[in-house]
């Protein structure tokens, strides 16, 4: 890896900690970001000559703080400009400084930085954009590309979001245990939003948006290092790893969706699966189940099945039952119905799905699942109608194409599909 690539990785890695600490010093997001930028510029000049510092984050905080204070002084014309070499050459000062910076401060700094991005006044897309800009340090152009909007529109969106959190006020007091737990919950939800921005992208956009999945996983690992005994954060990291592990198998070369049952499991990423399974094992030991852990455990059961027919649907059904109690939602019940169909046949699945009709009338997947169940029961005309509704509600061309494929199969095999049954 070239010097530059190494330095860029180090700057990215240090960013949440450094910007978080600078925000604590200056209590102003713009000043903190600017100070960090200046420190990065100095690092790019200094590090190739003097070698990387032992603690890049501490170096960047120290230099960034000095630069920003100098900037304030310069504007106030209190003192003359300092010698730049004095700022960029830390020498022995670094060791002593590292000792002064408390690990506990860092933890709350990073959590605060993430937490201000999930202010409840901000719509989800603004939360995600803001976090990618402030915490991850992606350029506006990179974020705009991931959201498939123009650069100036994204610039406006981020500026508006910053204005809102500026008005709301950043919570600088050290959080108590309850506040910390609440912040952690909000941040976890936001990380999953970032992940889903990448994961839910159709094939044509998957490549541009996959970095969002990687970034969400990187931030979840960071959060887990700060809070190593939080089972829900383990569950979240595991869920994202186990889902992202399937990335290479989710679309065919033409961009059509390949369902879990039909994916080539040899294309799943073994390393991500191993990490996800390890995290689920760790989380379960705490015996404090939560929605991320349960969803992670369901993903783990899919990951453990070498072939689709090896899937432990009975256990998945139980886990969805638990998820229904933890986080009641018709969408969870819909997912459970698929497990029930695998276990007890299409009629049992349909019995579970029908009562959801009112609440999920506008939901693409509801009509897709219902259509598939009706197809298996040989109720072709009703299946066709359900698939028709699904197509009308499809969010992407690939979703619509996938349903059309079901419809084509219906046309071709006509009523003969009634004989088809899912394997238990």
């Amino acid at each position, binding site marked *: *890896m070239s010097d530059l*690539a*190494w330095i860029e*990785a*180090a700057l*990215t*890695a*240090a960013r949440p900690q450094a910007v978080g600490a600078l925000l604590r010093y200056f209590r102003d997001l713009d000043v903190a970001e600017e100070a960090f930028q200046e420190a990065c510029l100095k690092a790019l000049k200094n590090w190739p000559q003097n070698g*990387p510092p*032992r*603690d*890049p984050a501490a170096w960047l905080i120290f230099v960034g703080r000095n630069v920003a204070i100098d900037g304030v002084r310069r504007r106030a014309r209190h003192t003359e400009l300092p010698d730049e070499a004095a700022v960029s050459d830390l020498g022995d000062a670094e060791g002593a400084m590292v000792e002064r910076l408390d*690990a506990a401060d860092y933890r709350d700094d990073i959590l605060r930085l993430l937490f201000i991005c999930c202010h409840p006044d901000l719509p989800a897309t603004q939360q995600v954009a803001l976090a990618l800009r402030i915490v991850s340090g992606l350029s506006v152009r990179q974020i705009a590309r991931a959201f498939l909007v123009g650069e100036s529109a994204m610039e406006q969106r981020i500026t508006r979001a910053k204005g809102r959190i500026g008005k709301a006020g950043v919570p600088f007091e050290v959080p108590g245990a309850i506040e910390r737990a609440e912040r952690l919950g909000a941040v976890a939800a936001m990380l999953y939003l970032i992940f889903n921005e990448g994961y839910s992208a159709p094939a044509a956009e998957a490549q541009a948006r996959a970095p969002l999945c*990687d970034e969400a996983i*990187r931030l979840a*690992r*960071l959060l*887990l*290092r700060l809070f*190593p*005994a939080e089972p829900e954060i*383990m569950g979240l*990291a595991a869920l994202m790893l186990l889902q992202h592990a399937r990335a290479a198998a989710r679309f065919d070369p033409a961009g059509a969706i390949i369902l879990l049952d039909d994916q080539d499991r040899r294309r799943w990423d073994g*390393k991500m699966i*191993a*990490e996800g399974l*390890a*995290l689920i094992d*760790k989380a379960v*030991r705490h015996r404090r189940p939560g929605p991320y852990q349960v969803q992670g455990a369901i993903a783990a059961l899919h990951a453990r099945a070498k072939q689709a027919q090896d899937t432990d649907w009975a256990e998945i059904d139980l886990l969805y039952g638990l998820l229904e109690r933890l986080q009641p939602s018709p969408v969870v019940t819909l997912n459970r119905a698929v497990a029930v169909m695998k276990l007890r046949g299409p009629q049992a699945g349909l019995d579970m799905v029908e009562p959801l009709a009112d609440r999920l009338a506008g939901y693409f997947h509801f009509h897709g699942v219902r259509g598939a169940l009706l197809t298996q029961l040989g109720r072709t005309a009703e299946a066709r109608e359900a698939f028709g509704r699904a197509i009308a509600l499809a969010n992407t061309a690939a979703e619509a194409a996938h349903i059309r494929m079901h419809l084509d199969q219906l046309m071709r095999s006509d009523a003969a599909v009634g004989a088809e049954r899912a394997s238990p």
Partner: protein
Amino acid sequence: MLYAILCYHSEDVVCSWSKEQDDAVMARVQAVEDKLARQGRLGPVARLLPTTAATTLRKDSEPPLVIDGPFAETKEQLLGFYMVDCATLDEALDTARDLGRANPGGAYEIRPVSVFRPGGSVG
């Protein structure tokens, strides 16, 4: 003499590598490993999952305490190791330098091995 070359690096940095960067490092490291293997000097090699996947069993209490995370909170973490047969410490250091050129940043601890059982019962 068998040496363990223990790889320490900042996990934050390694987790910030893009897949392309990671693949490039792994390919260069593989070339060094291939050379060692041809010389008949390469033993087991392991790359460890991030410390977030680690669990620690503290044996200094009864019953032993299970703690989430790595044993030590350090700036740089143990991320993997190589076992290499080297005639002298100088040769071990040369080998570590070769590996270091393929994978810069962080540190290698070069540690002579006292007991080695190759195992061989896992695939």
